[in-house]
């Protein structure tokens, strides 16, 4: 069994969370590490994404939190000397780095085996033209296409092929740069960007198969050629919509045996043609009017769809794929769920799973909202039910977009007439299903909706059925409604939506075998479509705890919350508790059924929590891992009689409500910026004048600074408030004093009701830049020397303890400060796990979640504030996804825009900052030229530093920038960015009317943008500094 001589293996992660590369790779990488562990092979994880579970010591023997560049991977390989490398578990990012190391001969020279599918196979799969050639040679049908490398070649190809066409990009992710052109001018507009986004400068012009069905087969294959298909996923959105943007159902619903099996056999032949070892997905387009199908592409690595397929079926694809990459055979391995049958089979599902994407495009100025061939969604959920309607409606609720189900309650949708709803469908508004339901509600026929969407009648019929049932229900008397209740619940309506009293849902197992064999793993979902529940109340339910996940990722909620959930689960386990998990996000580690005694894949909401509690007898619930959702359902859960570990719902309310929080802060003598809540614009204006501009404006009760902004004058203030009122009805607006040029700092803490442990973080950017988008620093404890600094730190800690005692805070909390003239003003208190905790924990070499769990059940062994000794500099940088958000104006401000984060540690602040910054894509140290303009401060020093440290050309587009900086026009700047003569841009502020094109060109052409003068200054000083490539523990 296995490959001889493999004793140590390196796994490469995918870096910061970005659109199209999210936590699914934390899941697959973690499974690979688990497989190595189970085989007794030493593991090394390489990933700058500090918030991942895989970069904890839960699974890996050595952890390297470093930039995913060839240089650093090489340094670690030379140090660790692994026998093999697993390149297929960290998305396209990991694959590209590893392929480069293979192509340069580095891996061979250092005796590192490229495990799994060989590089030749991978390159055949990912080079679009090579892949088409290979398929044709094997007699596998692909759409007619031409590979082009320039605009001219492209125009020629399109003229020959005829419109419409689909343009696909090689070696890329999330369909970035890809587009559909119906006209020649559409083509001309987009081809430049597409070529720029290609890893090889090659794109494929392909016949556009709009309206065809789109299917994905997940194939496993071992070194002996044994192959099977783990899942077939059917995209409800037809071809033309990126699969990451599509609503997906599993198993496939509209395929008969013949075509299902034809495509299955073809998928296995595709896997054979690239000599796959491990797992790949094969994407098909299928004519809805015949048996004609084409292979579109394959990804010979773990992917979003493989993670989804694992969660859909219960089959641990990445875990098994890792073992296959190490030379094991499929039939030698066990089906991990039944633990008695073989891993060589094809899972059968006796339920329906529906994946839905979540978009946050409205958070981005000027972003194109309509969905298409490029991925823009930033999160996804999976609803499971025993009817399609139930799975769909659950998924809508899981998105946490304020909807109860497919029947929208959002006035902007419910006020639509039929024509408007159909128009919204045809321009591809996000969340099409809400508009489809509205169209049906207004009397549209299935044919009309089919014409607008291209969606199969089978699915539309289901949605129409939901609408009809609901209209029936609304038109019925109270007694009639009572008789309809069971049916309505089966259709997936929530109790709340129907105004019904609570009913316990049934729990069913996901067992890969449709009930044919008993399952050892307790992987479950809840359903109203069932006569019997399959769960026995736990014998010691009093010693069990239910940990809630944070649900769907969105701006502000990402892998950090999954980290918290997973770590709290592990901590509870260590405390001897039985751990049950509830979460609905398929791209997470917490929904790996292997991580807990029981996993409920279901909505994180009151109805499901209570159903789980009644089914299992578990009364103790951990809410503080569930992000803002947790805080939102705290009161409801408390009233329903479950016991919440951590801070009480009362404490959460007191902290979340500005008025009550302010009162407490005042009573305790803690400084805070002046503020007020206002219901009327005129009151806001009056208040702003009384405290003086600038002021910070935001709605109450939101996470990630939605609609938060700074107003410098009355005009701006009015505009901001109007904007908020448009997005949030009936919510008061908070106006607070914006302390200019204040330093922002955080304390990440855990408490036991009296004492606390905490780690201070200081932001590079001034207060006003959302903490999720700012660069955070941790300093060695002994580096704090100045008396003033010590005083500030002491005051922050004292404030923390005052609040802990006053609110009886238990579990994790995060306290935010603005520091001005050595006085820390409290800005915010969050009584839950926070975004920065994985970073602060890893910097300090402790695990805050361990303390959080301990503190919520027992007492710490110290009094007051305990500050763990920190021995390194740590810097955390935001990862943005501007390139993926077509049209969006890149800007830094009070509203959060980043999708992920990366970090690094070192002996000097400069080295840590440099490594952290280049860990975020597409950041690179400029080598050719820098464009510098619009800085509020430090412009001269930045210019000086850049020249000194990099010896580089400087350009500007504004007058009076001083000597040695070439003044060029905007047009020249844009051309220079496109040609990479300018390969970094430093600027600041929010002025789309002046520099939209420059900023947008940067992100479309992968040129780094630095949008803050404080950061610009710090960064320019760090360029050229000497860095370490050390293992994480060496900093503890």
């Amino acid at each position: 069994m296995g490959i001889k001589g493999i004793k140590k293996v390196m796994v490469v992660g995918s870096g910061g969370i970005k659109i199209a590369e999210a936590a699914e790779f934390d899941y697959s990488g973690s499974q690979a590490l688990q497989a190595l562990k189970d085989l007794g092979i030493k593991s090394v994880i390489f990933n700058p994404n500090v918030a991942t579970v895989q970069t904890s010591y839960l699974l890996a023997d050595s952890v390297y939190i470093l930039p995913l560049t060839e240089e650093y991977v090489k340094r670690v390989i030379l140090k660790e000397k692994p026998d093999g490398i697993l390149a297929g578990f960290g998305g396209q990012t990991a694959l590209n780095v590893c392929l480069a190391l293979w192509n340069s001969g580095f891996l061979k020279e250092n005796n590192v085996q490229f495990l799994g599918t060989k590089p030749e196979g991978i390159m055949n799969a990912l080079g679009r033209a090579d892949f088409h050639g290979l398929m044709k040679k094997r007699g596998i049908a692909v759409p007619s296409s031409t590979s082009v490398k320039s605009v001219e070649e492209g125009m020629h190809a399109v003229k020959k092929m005829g419109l419409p066409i689909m343009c696909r990009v090689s070696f890329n992710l999330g369909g970035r740069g890809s587009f559909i052109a119906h006209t020649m001018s559409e083509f001309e507009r987009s081809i430049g960007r597409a070529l720029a986004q290609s890893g090889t400068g090659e794109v494929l012009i392909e016949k556009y198969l709009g309206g065809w069905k789109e299917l994905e087969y997940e194939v496993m294959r071992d070194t002996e050629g044994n192959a099977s298909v783990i899942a077939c996923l059917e995209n409800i959105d037809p071809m033309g919509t990126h699969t990451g943007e599509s609503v997906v159902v599993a198993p496939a619903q509209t395929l008969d045996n013949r075509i299902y099996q034809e495509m299955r056999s073809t998928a296995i032949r595709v896997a054979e043609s690239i000599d796959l070892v491990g797992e790949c997905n094969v994407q098909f387009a299928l004519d809805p009017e015949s048996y004609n199908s084409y292979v579109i592409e394959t990804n010979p690595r773990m992917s979003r769809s493989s993670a989804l397929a694992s969660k859909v079926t219960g089959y641990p694809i990445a875990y098994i794929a890792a073992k296959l990459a190490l030379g094991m055979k499929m039939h030698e391995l066990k089906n991990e769920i039944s633990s008695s049958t073989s891993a060589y089979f094809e899972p059968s599902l006796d339920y329906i799973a529906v994946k839905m994407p979540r978009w946050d495009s409205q958070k981005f100025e000027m972003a194109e909202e309509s969905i298409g061939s490029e991925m823009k969604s930033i999160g996804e959920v999976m609803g499971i039910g025993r009817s399609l309607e139930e799975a769909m409606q659950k998924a809508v609720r899981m998105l946490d977009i304020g909807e109860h189900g497919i029947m929208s309650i959002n006035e902007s949708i419910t006020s639509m007439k039929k024509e408007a709803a159909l128009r919204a469908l045809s321009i591809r508004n996000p969340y099409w299903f809400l508009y489809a339901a509205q169209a049906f509600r207004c009397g549209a026929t299935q044919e009309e909706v089919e014409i607008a969407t291209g969606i199969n009648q089978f699915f539309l019929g289901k949605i129409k059925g939901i609408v009809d049932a609901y209209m029936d229900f609304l038109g019925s008397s109270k007694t009639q409604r009572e008789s309809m209740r069971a049916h309505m619940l089966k259709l997936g309506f929530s109790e709340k939506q129907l105004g019904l009293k609570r009913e316990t849902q049934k729990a069913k197992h996901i067992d890969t075998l449709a009930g044919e064999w008993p399952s050892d793993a307790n992987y479950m979902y809840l359903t109203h479509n069932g006569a019997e529940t399959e769960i026995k109340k736990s014998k010691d339910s009093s010693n069990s705890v239910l940990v809630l996940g944070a649900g769907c990722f969105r701006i502000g909620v990402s892998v950090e919350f999954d980290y918290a959930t997973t770590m709290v689960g592990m901590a509870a386990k260590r405390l001897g508790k039985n751990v049950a998990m509830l979460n609905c996000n398929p791209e997470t580690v917490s929904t790996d059924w292997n991580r807990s005694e029981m996993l409920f894949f279901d909505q994180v909401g009151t109805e499901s929590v209570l159903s789980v509690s009644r089914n299992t007898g578990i009364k103790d619930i951990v809410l503080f891992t569930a992000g803002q959702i947790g805080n939102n359902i705290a009161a409801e859960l408390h009233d329903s009689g479950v016991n919440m570990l951590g801070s009480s719902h009362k404490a959460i309310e007191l902290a979340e409500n500005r008025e009550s929080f302010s009162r407490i802060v005042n009573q305790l003598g803690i400084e805070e910026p002046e503020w007020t809540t206002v219901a009327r614009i005129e009151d806001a204006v009056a208040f702003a004048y009384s405290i003086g501009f600038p002021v910070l404006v935001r709605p109450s009760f939101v996470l990630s600074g939605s609609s938060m902004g700074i107003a410098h004058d009355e005009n701006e203030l009015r505009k901001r408030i109007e904007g908020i009122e448009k997005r949030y009805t009936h919510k008061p607006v908070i106006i607070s004093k914006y302390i200019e040029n204040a330093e922002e700092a955080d304390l990440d803490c855990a408490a036991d009701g009296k004492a606390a442990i905490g780690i201070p973080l200081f932001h590079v950017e001034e207060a006003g830049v959302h903490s999720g988008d700012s660069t955070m620093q941790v300093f060695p404890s002994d580096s704090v020397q100045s008396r003033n600094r010590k005083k500030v730190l002491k005051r922050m800690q004292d404030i923390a303890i005052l609040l802990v005692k006053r609110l009886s805070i238990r579990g994790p909390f995060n306290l935010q400060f603005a520091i001005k003239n050595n006085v820390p003003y409290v800005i915010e208190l969050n009584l839950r796990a926070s975004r920065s905790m994985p970073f602060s924990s890893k910097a300090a070499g402790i695990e805050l979640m361990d303390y959080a769990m301990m503190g919520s059940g027992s007492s710490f062994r110290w009094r007051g504030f305990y500050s763990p000794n920190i021995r390194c500099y740590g810097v955390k940088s935001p990862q943005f996804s501007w390139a993926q958000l077509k049209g969006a104006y890149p800007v830094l401000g009070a509203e959060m825009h980043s999708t992920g984060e990366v970090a690094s540690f070192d002996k000097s602040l400069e080295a840590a900052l440099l490594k952290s910054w280049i860990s975020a894509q597409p950041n690179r140290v400029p080598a050719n030229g820098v464009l510098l303009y619009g800085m509020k401060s430090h412009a001269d020093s930045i210019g000086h530093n850049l020249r000194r440290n990099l010896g580089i050309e400087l350009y500007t587009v504004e007058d009076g920038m001083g000597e040695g900086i070439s003044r060029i026009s905007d047009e020249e700047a844009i051309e220079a960015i496109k040609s990479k003569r300018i390969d970094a841009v430093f600027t600041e502020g929010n002025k789309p009317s002046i520099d939209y094109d420059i900023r947008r060109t940067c992100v479309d052409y992968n040129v780094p943008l630095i949008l803050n003068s404080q950061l610009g200054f710090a960064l320019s000083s760090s360029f050229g500094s000497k860095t370490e490539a050390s293992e994480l523990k060496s900093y503890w």
Partner: protein
Amino acid sequence: MHRGKTRSIYLILEDGSVYDGFAFGGRGDARGEVVFTTSMNGYVESLSDPSYNGQMLVITHPLVGNYGVPKKLRRNGILTNFESDRIQVSGLVLEEITKGMEWNSEKSLEEWLEEENVPGIYGIDTRSLTLHLRENGSMAGIISDSKNPKGFEDYEKKNLVENVSVKKPVYYDNNGPTIAIVDYGLKEGILDCMYAMGYSIIRLPYNTTEKKLFSYDPSGIVLTNGPGNPLLLEKEVSTVAGIMEHDVPMLGICLGHQLISMAVGMNIRKMAFGHRAINKGVIDLASGRCMVTTHNHGYAVYGETPANIDVSHVSLDDRTIEGIRVKGKKVISVQFHPEARPGAGDGLQIFKEFDMMVKSGKKWGSKGSKK
């Protein structure tokens, strides 16, 4: 999901369990052994599979009917999209029946059952029913308007083969060597596969004598699948034993495999709830190659292997014997369905092996017969 005009009916099992549901399809009571399949699609093929004759089928996937029922298509007189020309199950048990229609649908599933007067029941928690059958074994059941119907049938004592076998020989001319196919309830897929390899086919009734069979001078013989208890087929087993003496290449499939196994002295047992699925891993012990195969059997070959028998295939899940070879003979015998329908094409290589054997005349165990 249905609502509106619904008629409540029941599925009653012989152990007294009662499942409430709603009626669709044909009228009247339905009787049969209640078995489940975990195949997620392919209901047209399954319902028309003669091996299901006398059984009520529970489909574990909750939605069934999504792509309707196509028009019957024949090629060279062989059905290409149905396994026989009628519904073979005596009743259908579903969570939900859907009314889907695709480009090639002729009617809905419900209409098909109505036309052929086969009763169905939906609204059943098919998962809990499946777990019940898994724990307690397949058992007789009745779909009825009454909660207390009488007359559970003993499936094990019914000779179902005679219901489904062809009554008179049928010849499919292909201008090639003739293969004799003994029809114990054959799936059209087997005909299709043999015909595709260039053979002419003589399809014979299950009770055809050895003498009659060889009067067609076949180049090879196929013993097909079929329904029911193989232990009732003593006469057929002795005929098979006689046929095997002739040294003509033979292929046994499912029931055919069980008859060959009995003819060489192996034992048969009734399984608790059988194998009915299209997702099962089987390993070819000679080559080490695995394949995903279709299964539909409630009985299995087991016990000591006689000295002249090699087990050629086993189930990766429970090591059930899935295929045997007879030393020094030209016999390939498999428990699974190489023709699939529904299911994956991995097993088609069995037909290729049979084809090679017919063409080369090589016996099992002789040099070069293995891969």
